[in-house]
């Protein structure tokens, strides 16, 4: 295992001691000591999220407010999506881009009555806040919210669970938010998530005692539905099945928006200029990117993992796996990988090098898993 700081030097979320009490296996992630799984294990937690309800502590992520009447117009210059037109309490996925059209981070933006509420990745939050300050601090106040916790309640039973606590939340449409009182605490929540299931992300102004109370209350409400605590291990297998990008894997500053299959978030025709607009326009004018992210199903025996080479059937290296693991729901092994555009048609056969052996794989549609429409 790679060297990591001793547990005492790592950052902790407000719920850290609760995870340890629950018997979680703790691992370092983005400088935090985080639960990778609880005693049930990754597979059981993953299944429970798809079939019932799962509760995640993702308080390590960054929550930031942008305050001021010019905040939306200012943020629009940093992301390729429209922000000015986002309705109150509506939420949108966005990307911080760089001049080359590469991706500095992905984030969720929610418009509130008097500010914009951003959620960014834990590993990027320091850089993101610096980026915001360096670019738009003259147009709006950039206010990090380090005292806030974040719980994600995900699964087909999530609405029923949340209905027991704050019925207003179960009325929300997807990617919309509302304030709610849980365990006597005024929280904000959005109907959103990173698992491909229905669910809610709950933002809690919080210390250890407060966030533990909210967790316990959600857990108690979820008990009859079979709620399980769920760690980063299952969080990864769930988002991978849903082909959602993970920063540092499918998206990074050397990967452009089109390569990452995120062209639908690139509004080149929006009025405002934004970082990377001309680079992305150039890529589009040239007929698109030269390589693209595809989904692979591993056809022969073997598990493709992050960083493994992707080759042609005769062994020429053409790309790399960005994320790979068993798909717990589909009972097959899947991966996301970058390959040249010539190899992106469905059913194209390639190979993944697994411990020096070529293992056959084929290009399949993504997401690998889609929840059934009700």
């Amino acid at each position, binding site marked *: 295992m790679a060297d990591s700081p001793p547990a005492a030097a790592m950052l902790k979320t407000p719920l850290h001691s609760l995870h340890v009490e629950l018997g979680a*296996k703790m691992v370092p992630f983005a400088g935090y000591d985080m639960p*990778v*799984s609880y005693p049930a*294990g*990754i*597979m*059981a937690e993953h299944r429970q999220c798809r079939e019932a309800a799962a509760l995640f502590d993702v308080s390590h992520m960054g929550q930031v407010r942008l305050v001021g009447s010019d905040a939306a117009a200012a943020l629009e210059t940093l992301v390729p999506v429209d922000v000015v037109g986002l309705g109150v309490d509506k939420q949108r996925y966005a990307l911080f881009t760089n001049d080359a059209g590469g991706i500095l981070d992905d984030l969720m933006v929610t418009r509130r009555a008097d500010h914009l509420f951003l959620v960014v990745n834990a590993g990027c939050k320091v850089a993101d806040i610096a980026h915001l300050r360096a670019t738009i601090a003259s147009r709006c106040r950039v206010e990090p919210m380090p005292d806030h916790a974040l719980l994600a309640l995900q699964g087909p039973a999530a609405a029923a669970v949340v209905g027991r606590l704050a019925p207003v939340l179960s009325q929300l449409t997807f990617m919309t938010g509302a304030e709610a009182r849980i365990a006597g605490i005024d929280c904000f929540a959005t109907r959103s998530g990173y698992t491909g299931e229905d669910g809610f992300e709950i933002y809690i102004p919080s210390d250890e005692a407060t966030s533990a109370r909210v967790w316990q209350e959600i857990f108690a409400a979820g008990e009859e539905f079979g709620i399980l605590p769920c760690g980063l*291990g299952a969080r*990864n*297998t769930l988002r991978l099945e849903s082909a959602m990008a993970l920063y540092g894997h499918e998206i990074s500053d050397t990967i452009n928006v089109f390569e990452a299959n995120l062209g639908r978030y690139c509004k080149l025709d929006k009025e405002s200029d934004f970082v990377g607009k001309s680079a992305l326009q150039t890529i589009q004018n040239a007929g698109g990117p030269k390589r693209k992210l595809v989904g692979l199903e591993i056809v022969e*025996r*073997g*598990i493709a*993992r992050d960083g493994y080479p992707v080759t042609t059937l005769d062994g020429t290296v053409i790309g790399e796996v960005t994320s790979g*693991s*068993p798909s*717990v729901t589909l009972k097959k092994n899947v991966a996301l990988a970058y390959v040249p555009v010539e190899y992106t048609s469905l059913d194209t056969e390639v190979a993944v090098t697994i*411990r020096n052996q070529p293992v056959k794989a084929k290009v399949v549609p993504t997401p690998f898993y889609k929840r059934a429409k009700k």
Partner: protein
Amino acid sequence: MAYPATYKYTKEHEWIEVDGTTGTIGITDYAQSSLGDIVFVELPKVGDKLTAHETFGSVESVKAVSDLYSPVAGSVTEINSALNDAPETINTDANGTWLVKVTLANPADLDSLLDSAAYTKYVEEETGH
């Protein structure tokens, strides 16, 4: 955690049960517990020659690949191919789930392995378990 007294152990968490010159090899309860759900096992072929303390295959959990280290030198006589379809039996019964059987090339290899008490102590010291 249970570590049968009739087995011998490596510091890499494999066990071996010896009967004459036949050694039966598996991984310990501590190993399966650390790995979590086992989803894939890669074993050598019958006839392969194993070298003591060198890798002879791997066991994979959802998150990670873990190499298997042979406790002894020997040649593989049987492999547990049921593990292709049901690798999780290692989780439910690590002590009772064998991976490979070998004919020992050098019975003296066993002398450098840990007995059950020494292995138990080793695990406690290493890990606080």
